């Protein structure tokens, strides 16, 4: 007989709930619906940040823009997407792809205090001219693990 719910007073396994047919006491992590020792992730913030595009299609480092994110303790788990804005602004989110003049590349990296939005999209301008860098928007979702 298996118990799907285990509540114990000791610190090792305070509260566990398992999937159907699985004993909560011995269940592997993937068979647990909840484990008191694995603090759930919650969405900490959603938003966007602007990043300038590269001026030329070369291998120069991408521009980065720093923003403050979740205070400690918090592990940097996040999801990002580049938002399309040119040429006529449908605002769709884009994965990395190249299609003729359109080079959509964007992402981000994070440490516990800072999220860096990155794009390696180049400026889309009239050939032979030197257009100013364009603003790209990186959409992001930052999760926070509240386990101290």
């Amino acid at each position, binding site marked *: 007989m298996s118990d799907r719910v285990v509540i114990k007073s000791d610190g090792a396994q305070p509260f566990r709930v398992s999937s159907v047919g699985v004993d909560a006491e011995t269940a592997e992590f993937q068979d647990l619906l909840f484990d008191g020792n694995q603090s759930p992730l919650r969405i*900490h913030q959603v*938003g966007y940040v602007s990043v300038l595009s590269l001026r030329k299609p070369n291998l120069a480092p991408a521009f980065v*823009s720093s923003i403050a994110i979740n205070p400690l303790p918090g592990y940097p788990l996040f999801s990002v997407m580049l938002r399309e804005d040119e040429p*006529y*602004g449908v605002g769709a989110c884009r994965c990395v792809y190249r299609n003729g003049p359109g080079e959509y590349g964007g992402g981000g990296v994070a440490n516990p205090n800072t999220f860096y939005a990155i794009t390696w999209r180049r400026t889309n301008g009239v050939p032979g001219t030197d257009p100013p860098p364009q603003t790209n928007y990186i959409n992001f979702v930052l999760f926070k693990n509240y386990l101290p």
Partner: protein
Amino acid sequence: MTLFLIHDKESGRIQHASKVYAPTDEYVNMLNEHGHTHVKVRTSRLVSPDEWYIRNMRPRIRPRMPVVVSRTTIGAGESDSVVFTGLPHGVQFKAFMGGFNFQDERIEGTELEFSVPVPCICQVSFELWPYQTFRTEIEVIG
């Protein structure tokens, strides 16, 4: 839930927006330490930088550009054209064909007559801060 809008002090352009579900003083202090000028709004919306900007430390709708387009379908070649009227002085005009930006110029007058040499779907835009960028498509037939 609080929306933090970090913006450029001079232009009011929103550079970063974060909808924070459980904001703390620590988070606000962190923004201040990074030197981010920000406005706090209690809302569940995430406002678009295409439509909003910051003025007098408050989010406001960017004004719409009063552009009028004479036609949305024209013939290819210089014998036919579309006329844009109501342009603000100094607006930046851009034209795209299949994603290629083939025209990018500053318009000093309030009108622009525009023709396209080949059949295509041509996307055009007019940009001038703080107006919302005006965008439309012109079908150019052979």
